[in-house]
């Protein structure tokens, strides 16, 4: 954990398409931004849910895939040198005199004058298998990610799933764990072929075991897992002793910590005004899928518009003594200088 506090003009929560374009609009009015996202890469829903699907309603682009739009946005905002903090979830919000301090689950502390919430459908979080009582084991015996290696050292570890995360952690934890079992519903894996091969080699050499089946029950006490019941491929159930379980069933969107920041919420959305896209609290803006107002459409293009108006309104907080003059990127030499084209 670093004790250093990063100071910046703006923090953008969420690196979805709208958060990314906010970097651009803020950059044009000289507001520097840091962007935080729980995902390991930019793009939000576009990158996570439909990277290869076509989008047809981005003005000026007849068709663009979710990933290509993300790549284009990253190229477009490059001149503004925003700093990205991936794999981190913004947990808490503290009010300061003229701004905020945000802390992420990775321990990063950011101080900013304005806060832009572009959290979309919420933060992408690992799916929790609907197994009765699983919540009692989370953090002690059930883990969705590896934060501390000690949690796995010299313990019997069960990894459930057949995707890249399941395979990567099988390979990474095998040398650390006392024993490692990989459990998957079928003998096919939707993961990088090299990892699959390495995993099969470990099974071959007897360093890990692979079993077919799905977990149906957890057993243990006081947060300590002792075994799980597995329904095997042949529908015959068996007990699998284990101290630790890591389920990998993909990600889902949950509003998450934003709900606890003391902002007005309407059915998990943040109401804003449509001139500034400011929330119930001055200096805090909400743009993109996370906000609501009469007539709101959850479209990328609407989010882009919201980002532009937000940036105009944010300017007065960051530069209280400066008057903002409306300019076009086509003809303004000062904007072109910022974009690095002049």
């Amino acid at each position: 954990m670093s004790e250093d506090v990063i100071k910046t003009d703006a923090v953008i929560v969420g690196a979805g398409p709208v958060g990314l374009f906010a970097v651009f609009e803020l950059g044009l009015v000289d507001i520097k931004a840091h962007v935080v996202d729980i995902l390991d890469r930019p793009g939000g829903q576009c990158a996570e849910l439909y990277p290869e699907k076509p989008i047809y309603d981005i003005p000026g682009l007849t068709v663009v895939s979710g990933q290509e739009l993300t790549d284009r946005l990253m190229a477009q905002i490059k001149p503004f040198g925003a700093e990205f903090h991936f794999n981190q979830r913004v947990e808490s919000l503290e009010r300061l005199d003229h701004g905020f301090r945000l802390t992420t689950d990775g321990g990063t502390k950011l101080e900013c004058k304005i806060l832009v919430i572009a959290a979309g459908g919420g933060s992408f979080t690992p799916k929790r298998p609907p197994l009765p009582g699983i919540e009692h084991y989370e953090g002690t015996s059930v883990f969705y990610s590896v934060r501390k290696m000690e949690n796995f050292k010299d313990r019997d570890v069960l990894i459930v799933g057949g995707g890249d995360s399941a395979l990567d952690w099988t390979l990474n934890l095998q040398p650390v764990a006392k024993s490692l079992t990989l459990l998957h519903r079928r003998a096919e894996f939707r993961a990088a072929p090299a990892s699959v091969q390495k995993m099969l080699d470990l099974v071959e050499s007897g360093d890990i075991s692979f079993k077919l089946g799905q977990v149906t029950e957890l057993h243990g006490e006081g947060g300590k897992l002792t075994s799980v019941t597995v329904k095997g491929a042949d529908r015959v159930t068996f007990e699998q002793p284990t101290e630790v379980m890591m389920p990998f069933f993909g990600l889902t969107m949950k509003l998450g910590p934003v709900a606890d920041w003391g902002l007005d919420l309407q059915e998990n959305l943040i109401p804003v005004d449509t001139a500034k896209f400011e929330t119930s609290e001055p200096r805090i803006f909400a743009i993109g899928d996370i906000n609501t107002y009469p007539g709101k459409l959850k479209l990328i293009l609407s989010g882009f518009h919201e980002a532009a108006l937000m940036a105009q309104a944010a300017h007065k907080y960051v530069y209280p003594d400066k008057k903002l003059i409306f300019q076009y990127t086509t003809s303004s030499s000062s904007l072109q200088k910022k974009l690095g084209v002049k």
Partner: protein
Amino acid sequence: MTAQPANVMARITFIQNDGVERVVEAEPGMTVMEAAVKNSIPGIAAECGGACACATCHVYVEEAWREPTGHPEQMEEDMLDFAFDVRPESRLSCQIKVTDALDGLVVRIPDKQF
């Protein structure tokens, strides 16, 4: 205009885990997931909107309808890895296209979805 109906609707029955049955009408061409969402069938979250990227539209197809609905393609089979309690009759409802032949289709919503 002739009296010939342009689009025959297909009826789909959704059975909830508590036994409650809901029959909805679906237009051929739409997906079973879309029919569920349009009729606010609980338990079909369909977070990715049918992109076969979330597995939150998981259903069990009744035995008699397994052949007519066909088998999952590779992408769907892969995505079923992210569903809970997958069975041989499991499908992602966004990948089942409604056709006239599916009039009368019965699917069950799993006890527990993610």
